[in-house]
């Protein structure tokens, strides 16, 4: 003990809980703008967000929260997936029995499997809808071209993750969907057979394939997706936040801020430096009211000084919105999982393919095309579609129409895209509802 202390040791330890708390969360719940800024800035999870966010980015009818929903579904999938891993064995003799165990002996086993399955389907759908939103609002235009490319890659990885997970229950549905799916890969030019062999680890779907798909599903793909999601998020900020129409950033002569851009940047840097020294609740006067390092960040957001401040603090506006989207996503998955059970068919019987043998619904468009021509339907056309999606922001260099749904300036681009979407959905609908035994045309009614 320190000899100079006159107070009792108990007294100095009285604040222990509070001291621990304050050492973790450096700011109390903010009551002032400065507090809101530093709370966002000093918390690891919150600092991924900007201190202030443009009002336009918070419009629910602009984004529909689809990117967030995709991310939260990925979180749900990670948690439920890790839990399922505690009971799953990737072995052809045990996998199916483990599925039955989830049903029979594991507490909440069916429920977790349902959550994992429906969240996976939901993620494929949400990522696709997110892609549609970004296209229809022209948000892939400069400077966001590369983030679009990352998004397309994430979409493909999501499909692949879902596809690899499909085999794991080792039931009839799984076995034949993967037999068909990997045969499609075999039609790729030059390396097709090689890719198929590497994927399956054998010439047919069997134990090796199950093990390989398991490793891809629980390790390789989640890590890749996490990494790309991190870059995707990081790029949102580096590209100047979410897209918005240019008039949202227009100069207003009577603007709130009058400082020159250079001065403003300097001021904001200075504020960052001063922040810790400032007393909580101290409002900065007038022109200096700028908390954050936006002024130091290169890129289109650096318009400080000559634009009206149409942004709001992330705390609480953005965080509350994110929380709501998260809770709605979780609630949605829970609700679906309570009422609908994930399908589990007969155990694998190599002798008897089900008739018809169908892939997961999001691949049924592909399967429908494959029924006309294996190469063109399974490899040719999908590759062209993916290539067009990847190159889109570099092919469409026409500026304008950014930040609004169905902008008139983008009538042609949007019509082309919607045609392409409707065609693909049409193929999925035909493959799902209109194909019966031997892949013959049947009426669902």
């Amino acid at each position, binding site marked *: 003990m320190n000899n100079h202390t006159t107070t009792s040791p108990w007294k100095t330890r009285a604040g222990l809980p509070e001291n621990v708390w304050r050492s973790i969360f450096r700011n109390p719940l903010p009551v002032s703008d400065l507090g809101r800024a530093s709370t966002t800035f000093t918390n690891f999870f919150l600092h991924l967000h900007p201190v202030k966010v443009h009002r336009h980015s918070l419009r629910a009818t602009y984004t529909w929260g689809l990117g967030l929903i995709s991310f939260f579904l990925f979180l749900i999938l990670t948690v439920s997936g890790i839990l399922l891993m505690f009971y799953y064995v990737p072995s052809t003799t045990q996998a199916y029995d483990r599925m039955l165990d989830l049903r029979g002996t594991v507490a909440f086993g069916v429920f977790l499997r349902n959550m994992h399955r429906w969240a996976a389907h939901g993620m494929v759908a949400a990522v696709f809808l997110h892609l549609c939103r970004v296209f229809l609002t022209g948000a892939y235009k400069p400077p966001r071209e590369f983030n679009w490319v990352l998004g397309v890659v994430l979409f493909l990885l999501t499909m692949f993750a879902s596809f690899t997970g499909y085999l794991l229950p080792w039931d009839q549905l799984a076995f*034949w969907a993967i*037999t*068909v799916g*990997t*045969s*499609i890969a*075999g039609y790729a030019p030059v390396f097709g057979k090689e890719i198929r*062999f*590497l994927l399956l*680890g*054998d*010439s*047919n779907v*069997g*134990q*090796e394939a199950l093990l390989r798909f398991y490793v891809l599903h629980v390790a390789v793909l989640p890590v890749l997706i996490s990494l790309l999601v991190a870059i995707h998020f990081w790029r949102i900020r580096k590209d100047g936040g979410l897209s918005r129409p240019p008039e949202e950033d227009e100069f207003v002569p009577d603007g709130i801020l009058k400082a020159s851009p250079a001065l403003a940047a300097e001021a904001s840097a200075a504020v960052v430096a001063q922040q810790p020294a400032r007393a909580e609740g101290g409002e900065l006067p007038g022109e200096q009211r700028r908390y954050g390092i936006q002024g130091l960040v290169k890129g289109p957001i650096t318009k400080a000084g000559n634009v009206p401040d149409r942004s709001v603090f992330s705390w609480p506006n953005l965080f509350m919105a994110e929380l709501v989207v998260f809770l709605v996503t979780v609630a949605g998955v829970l609700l679906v999982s309570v009422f609908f059970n994930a399908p589990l068919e007969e155990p694998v019987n*190599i*002798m*008897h*393919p*089900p*008739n*018809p*043998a169908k892939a997961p619904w999001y691949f049924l468009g592909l*399967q429908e095309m*494959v*029924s*006309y*021509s*294996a*190469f063109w*339907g*399974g490899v040719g056309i999908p590759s062209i579609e993916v290539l067009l999606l990847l190159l889109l922001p570099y092919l469409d260099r026409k500026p304008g129409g950014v930040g609004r749904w169905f902008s008139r300036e983008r009538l042609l681009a949007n019509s082309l895209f919607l045609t392409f979407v409707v065609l693909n959905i049409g193929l999925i609908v035909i493959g799902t509802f209109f194909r019966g*035994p*031997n*892949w*013959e045309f049947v009426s669902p009614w």
Partner: protein
Amino acid sequence: MLKKKDSNEDQAQPLTPRRVLAWLSGFSLCGSAIITVFSNFTFIKPRATYGQPNRFSIGRPEDYPTGARIALEGRRICIVREGDQMAAISTTCTHLGCIVSSSETGFACPCHGSRYDQDGNVTAGPAPKALPWYRLSLAPNGELEVDKDNEIEVGTYFKV
């Protein structure tokens, strides 16, 4: 720091032993990285598989009466016998690997509706080529042997 140095002098720099060493070590470091990546790829490609062997015995010719079309489902082949002529026809659909079943006119695939005639020639559907025929031979012990690595022309029978 940023003088004219890098634009002009860089290209004209003499090849000193120091620079040669730097280049050499750079190459070898990159080389080892490439070898690492290459070894990873060869690692994940199995050299031995644990599935079924591609060469196997199917019993004696007497087990197959004339006119028989017997599908050995586990082996994914169909044994056909007409008089003293025998053949082993694959039952793996050439389209996307489903197992075809025997139908009145030949074979039918349940996955995408491909149809084959009795000899395995495509009659309908998306299948790109006929069902392969495999070489049959008589082993010294009097049993028939199928070699799935050895595809023969459609219609080439084996005389028992």
